[in-house]
């Protein structure tokens, strides 16, 4: 086992080694230069610490306003350049990250009520332009499923699960050949565990890869 394991992993190499090293060299130079500055001009150090504190406070403030119990995830699966434009006007770009300057994915903001909304004690599906009561389908362990293929030949499989207090949805996108492209999730997470309905949904379309 050890031999084959080592042999396999020995073949895995960083694709953009030189870029990472170059970034680190720059960082090292910056750190070393700052060390000299700090030792001769201590006032600059205070200024730096104040700036760092201000940034830290700003980041903490930002974190505090994020609804931490809700997982709004946009995950890209295949790293191909492809512009997806959806019927509702949203767009998503999948980018080849082989280009070191590229970011993983860009997208418009996530609309929590894109597919469903809670009205009183009912969960209403609104993704098809109609309003359908799907409350009976949804629970912690079960989901409502909707599927459509848009004008870009992208198939959207949507699952809605949970109850009125923690309803969530998951949208999975497949290309015209049935290849899994990406997903968009709006799911309430407890103790970092995915809800059971969501795991079942992932398994039902063979995209469950474990938590």
């Amino acid at each position, binding site marked *: *086992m*050890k031999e*084959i*394991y*080592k*042999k*396999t*992993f020995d*073949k*895995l*190499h*960083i*694709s*953009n*080694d030189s870029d*990472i*090293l170059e*970034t*680190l*060299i720059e*960082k*090292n*130079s910056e*750190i*070393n230069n700052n*060390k000299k500055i700090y*030792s001769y001009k201590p006032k600059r150090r205070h200024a730096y610490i104040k700036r760092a504190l201000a940034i830290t406070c700003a980041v903490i403030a930002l974190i505090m306003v*994020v609804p*931490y119990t809700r*997982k709004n*995830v946009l*995950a*890209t*699966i*295949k*790293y191909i350049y492809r512009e997806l434009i959806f019927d509702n006007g949203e767009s998503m770009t999948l980018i080849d*990250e082989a280009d070191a300057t590229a970011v*993983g994915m860009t997208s418009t903001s996530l609309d929590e009520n894109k597919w469903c909304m809670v009205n009183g004690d009912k969960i209403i599906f609104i993704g098809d332009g109609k309003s359908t009561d799907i409350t009976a389908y949804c629970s912690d362990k079960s989901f409502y499923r909707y599927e459509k293929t848009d004008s870009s030949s992208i198939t959207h499989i949507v699952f809605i699960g949970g109850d009125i207090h923690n309803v969530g949805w998951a949208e999975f996108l497949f290309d015209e050949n049935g290849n*899994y492209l990406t*997903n968009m*999730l709006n799911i309430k997470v407890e103790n*970092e565990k995915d809800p059971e309905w969501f795991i079942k949904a992932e398994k039902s379309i063979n995209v469950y*890869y*474990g*938590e």
Partner: protein
Amino acid sequence: MITITKEELCSFYEQHSSSIYRLALSYTRSIHDAEDIVQQAFTKLLIYQDTIDLSNIKGWLIKVAINECHNLNKSFWKSKCYIGEITEHMAQQLDKEENDLLTSLMKLPQKYRIIIHLYYYEELSYREIAEQLNIKESTVSMRLTRGRDKLKKLLKTLNNDYQ
């Protein structure tokens, strides 16, 4: 005051970056996350260079990389990784046996993958793994046994008679 020179940095990177990358790859299952982890681990090395025992730099980097992986896992923006990403990326370089191993390994839960990697690739002892992961040696032993069993079952399902 210790200062890591450019040459030392290049030397450290050349010696240890691949190991850290492979560890992170095993943990995150994502090529891009793994590359980020490498950069983050070495950046921390530069930031904390004054406080590090450079004689055990690899152990320190592994510890930092594992922590960074944990943090990524807890991240609000945690992504769902596609387990076929690595094997597809490496399709040309891997033979069937290697491909089956990697495919099966990536299907294992993270808690088994990391221990299998530290044991088989880094050749750490139970005690060293326990220290790196802040768990008991008995837990390491149990997870390694279970992980190995699960891996064998997965390999069998791929009609591979590798033991």
